[in-house]
C-alpha cells in the first residue's frame, strides 16, 4: 500500500471535535457508570449449581435394602446419606457407573460399578448396584461380610461414556452382555420402557450357568409387557439348558445373525475381557464400521501377562516407586504385574481414580523418572501427555524403579 493512500485516511464519525471529546471523556464516563452501578453481590450461579448437581465430586450414600439376585449376586439399593450432606442423587445417562470409594482392611480403594437402576429412580431417590461376588475378590469378600442395611457408602458422581446417544447410535440397539456385565443394560432397559430412550433393544446375554443369570424373571416379565421394544436371548455355555428363551454355547456370529438386524444396529458390549476377545472376533465377520460397536471399559485388568508386548521376563519383579503427593514423598514397592494405582493403594496413599481402565484420566500423574508399560488396549492418554511424560497409573505397570507425582484426591 502506498504512503499516499495511508495518509488519505481521515475518519470523522460525528465531527472532529466531538469525536476527540468522546475519546477524552471515556475514562470519566466509565467512572460514572461504575459509581452509579449497584453494589449488590451476585448470589446465584445457575450453571455451577447445575454442574454440581449433575457432577457432584462425592455422593454420600447409605444402604436401604439388599436383595439376593442369584446365589452369588446381590442388588444394593442406595439412598442419599443426608446426615453427611447428600440431599439428592445425581441424574445420569443409563449405562454410566459410580466409582465407589471403599476402605478394605485399612486400605482405601475405588471400584467402578454400573448403575443398574434407571435415571428416573435417581430422581425418586435411589440407585441400585448389582454386584457379583468374585472368587478371591479383594472388595467383594468385604461387601458380602460387612455390607448391611444402614452401611454408609461413599461414591463419585455418575461417570463413563457407555451410553446410548441418539445423535450417534441406531435406534436398534444390540446389547451383548457377559456375566455381571448385564447391569448397565438393566438401566438401559428401564429407560427404554419409560421412553426416556427412544430405541429398541435386542439383548444377547451370556452366562455360564442357568443359576448365574441375573434379572431373569424381571426381564421375562418386561419382555412380555413390551415385546416391540425388548427381546432378550440367554446364551449359556453350560452343557444342559432347560430355561425358556435360551441358546446353548457362546455369542457367535451365527447367534448374532439369528436374532439381530446386524447391518442396522448399534452394538453395545459389556462383560469380562474374555467375552470381548471372543465377541469382537465374531463381530469382525460382519465388517461393521467401528462407530457401530461400543464397549464399556474393562475395569481392572486381571491377566496382565496376556496383554500384547508385556515383558514376561520381569513378571516376578518388584520395583521401588517414589511417590510425590502434595508435600508428601514416600517410597513404596510396585509389583511388575500390578498397576501403579494398586501399588499406591496398597501403600495407603489413596490416589485418585475412577474408571480403573485408563479411560477417564482421573488418576493422570507425572512420570518423573523410570519406565512403565502402558496397556495398549486401554491407552487413552492425550497426545501431549505422552509427549510430556504424563501417565494414567491405572493402566500403567512398572518396568523399572520409578518416581511419579500424583495429584491428591480432589476432596470436598
Amino acid at each position: 500500500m502506498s504512503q499516499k493512500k495511508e495518509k488519505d485516511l481521515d475518519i470523522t464519525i460525528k465531527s472532529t471535535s466531538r469525536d476527540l471529546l468522546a475519546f477524552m471523556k471515556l475514562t470519566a464516563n466509565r467512572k460514572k457508570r461504575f459509581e452509579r452501578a449497584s453494589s449488590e453481590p451476585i448470589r446465584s450461579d445457575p450453571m455451577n449449581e447445575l454442574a454440581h448437581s449433575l457432577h457432584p465430586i462425592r455422593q454420600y450414600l447409605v444402604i436401604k435394602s439388599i436383595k439376593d439376585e442369584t446365589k452369588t449376586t446381590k442388588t444394593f439399593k442406595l439412598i442419599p446419606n443426608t446426615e453427611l450432606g447428600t440431599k439428592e442423587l445425581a441424574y445420569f445417562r443409563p449405562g454410566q457407573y459410580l466409582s465407589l470409594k471403599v476402605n478394605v482392611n485399612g486400605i482405601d480403594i475405588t471400584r467402578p460399578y454400573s448403575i443398574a437402576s434407571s435415571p428416573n429412580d435417581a430422581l425418586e431417590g435411589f440407585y441400585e448396584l448389582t454386584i457379583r461376588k468374585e472368587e478371591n475378590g479383594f472388595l467383594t469378600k468385604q461387601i458380602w461380610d460387612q455390607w448391611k442395611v444402614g452401611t454408609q457408602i461413599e461414591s463419585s458422581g455418575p461417570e463413563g461414556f457407555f451410553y446410548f446417544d441418539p445423535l450417534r447410535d441406531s435406534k436398534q440397539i444390540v446389547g451383548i452382555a457377559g456375566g455381571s456385565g448385564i447391569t448397565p443394560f438393566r438401566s438401559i432397559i428401564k429407560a427404554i420402557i419409560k421412553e426416556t430412550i427412544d430405541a429398541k433393544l435386542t439383548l444377547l446375554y451370556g452366562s455360564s450357568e442357568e443359576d448365574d443369570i441375573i434379572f431373569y424373571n424381571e426381564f421375562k416379565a418386561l419382555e412380555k409387557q413390551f415385546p416391540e421394544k425388548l427381546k432378550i436371548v440367554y446364551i449359556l455355555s453350560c452343557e444342559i439348558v432347560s430355561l425358556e428363551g435360551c441358546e446353548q454355547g457362546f455369542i457367535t456370529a451365527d447367534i448374532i445373525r439369528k436374532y439381530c438386524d446386524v447391518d442396522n444396529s448399534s452394538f453395545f458390549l459389556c462383560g469380562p475381557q474374555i467375552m470381548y476377545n471372543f465377541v469382537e472376533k465374531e463381530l469382525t465377520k460382519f465388517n461393521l464400521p467401528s462407530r457401530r460397536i461400543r464397549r464399556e471399559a474393562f475395569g481392572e485388568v486381571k491377566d496382565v501377562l496376556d496383554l500384547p508386548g508385556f515383558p514376561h521376563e520381569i513378571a516376578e519383579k518388584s520395583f521401588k516407586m517414589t511417590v510425590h503427593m502434595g508435600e508428601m514423598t514416600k517410597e513404596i514397592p510396585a509389583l511388575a504385574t500390578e498397576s501403579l494405582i494398586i501399588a499406591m493403594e496398597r501403600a495407603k496413599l489413596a490416589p485418585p481414580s475412577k474408571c480403573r481402565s485408563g479411560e477417564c484420566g482421573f488418576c493422570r500423574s507425572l512420570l518423573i523418572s523410570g519406565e512403565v508399560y502402558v496397556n495398549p488396549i486401554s491407552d487413552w492418554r492425550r497426545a501431549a501427555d505422552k509427549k510430556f511424560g504424563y501417565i494414567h497409573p491405572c493402566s500403567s505397570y512398572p518396568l523399572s524403579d520409578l518416581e511419579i507425582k500424583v495429584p491428591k484426591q480432589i476432596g470436598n
Partner: protein
Amino acid sequence: MTKSISKEKNRSFDVIVIGAGNGGLVAAARVAMKGAKVILLEQHNLPGGFASSFVRGRFEFETSLHELYDYSTPGNKGGIRILFEDRLNIDAEFVPVPEAYRLIVTNPDEKIDAVLPFGIEAFIKAVEKEVPGSEDSVRKFFQLGKEIDQATTYIGQMRGNPDQDVLLREHTNFLRTAAYPVDDVQDALNIPKKARAMLNAYWLYLGVPTSRVNTTVFAAMVHGYILKGAYIPKMRSHEYTSAIEAKIREYDGTVEYNTRVEKILVKEGKVIGIQTNKGEIIDTNHVICNASPTLTYNKLIHPKSEVPEIALKEINARTHGVTTIVVYMGLDTTAEKLGLKDYSYFICDTMDTDQLYDSLINLEVPKVQASLCLNNAIPNCSPPGTCIISITSAFRPGAWDKVKPEEYFKVKTKIADGLIENFEKATGTKIRNHIEEIEVATPQTFSRFTGTYNGVIYGYELESWDSIVPRLQNMNDEKHIEGLEFCGGFGKRGHGYSSSLKDGETAALFTIQSLMKEGIIK
C-alpha cells in the same frame, strides 16, 4: 479462620497463582523464571482451563480454540510467538490455518457463500469480487485497523500513560474512533452492506453485535487476523499448556492439581494468604488470580468485609459476555470425501448481528455457528480415514438457567441436533451417518471444568465505554486489594486466548515489580 492450628507452620510462597488457565500458566511461568517462589493451584487435574483437549475413542478433540491470534510466521513473529518461543521457550508446535473463513449466510435475501483468505490485499479482492465497488472502503477499514494497532502499541510502550500530543498528532484516526462501535465507523466509511457482512464474520469471536462492539478492539482484531494469519497447536491446546506447565516446574515452581482455592485471605486491604478446599492455609502477600473478578469479589475474598464496594459496582456495571455450546464429532470418513475443503466456517441465517445476538438468550438452536474441520489444518489430527468436526455456537448467560438436571441431556441433544442439521444444510454435506464419537459441551460443562461464573467464557462485553482502551488506561487505579492481580479473559485486554496469555504476562510483570520493591527478588 475455621481451621484449627496444625503442628506445622503454614506453607508460604512469594506468589500464589489461582487457576491454570491461559493467564495463570503464563503468569506462574514468568514469575518462576524471575526466581520467585511460586505455587500454581488448579481445581481440575489438567492445565489449561478452556485451553485443553479430551479423548473419546480414537479421537482427541480441541476443547475451545479456533484460531490463535497474533502468532504469525517465524520471520515476522507475532506477540504470542515471541512469548512462547523467546520469553518462555516452550516445546510446542503450531501450524498455520489455511484460510480466514468460509462465510455462509443462508437467508435468501442476504445469501453469501464465500471463502475469505488471509492476506489483506487478497481479502479485499475476495470481497470486491462479491461486492464490486467495495474495495476502497474495505481497504480503509484495514488501514484503520493498522493505525489502531500502532496506537495501542504506543500506549503499551508508554505503560498506559501516552503523551496526549503524540496521540493527537500521530494517532488521529485511532482517537476519533475509539469511543464508537463498529457500525458507526463502517457507516462513516460507506462500506456496502454485503461487504460489511463479509468483513464482520469475526464478530462472534467477540460476542457483541457490531452496533455495540468497540471499534478499537474489533478493527485491530480483524486487521491482525487477516494480516498475520492464524495458528493452532499441532496436538491441541493441551500441548502448549502442558509445555508451559513443564516450564514452571523447570524453574522450581510448584503446580498442584485437584486443589480449589476457596478463600483469598485479606487483612486491612492486603492479601495475606489463601485457603484451599482441603482446608489448608497457604501464606502469601501476592495472589495472581485467573478467576474472574465476578467470582473473586463475590465468592473468594475473605472476610466479606474486605470486599470493596467499588469492585462489586464495577462488576455490576458490566455485562457478562457469552457462553458457548460445542458439538465435537469424530467421523469415520474423511473431509475430502465429505467435500469439506476449508478449516473454519461461519454459518448464520443473517449477518444482522443484533438479531443474532438477541436470539442467543433463547434456549433454542442458535442461528449462528462457527464450525471447524480440524483435518483441513492438521491432516493427521485423527486416524487415516477419519476426520474431526466441531460446531460452536453461543448463548448469553441466562439462557440455560432454568434447565433442570433431568432435562439437561435432552436439551443439549436437541440443540446439538439442530446445529448439525444447519451445518449439513449450509455446506451440503451429510455427516450424520458418519458420527463415531460425539460429545456436547454446554455452559454447564464449562462451569464444571473451570468453575467459571454461570458458564461465561467471553469475559465482560467489550463495548466502547469499557473497551480495552479505557481498561488499559485505568488499570493502575482499578486495583482494590493490595497484592491481588488479575489475569485472564475478564481482564484488561478482553477475552480470547492471545489476550489472556498476554494478560498473564502483564500480571506477572506487576507482581515482579512489587517483589523487587520488597527486596524479595532481584
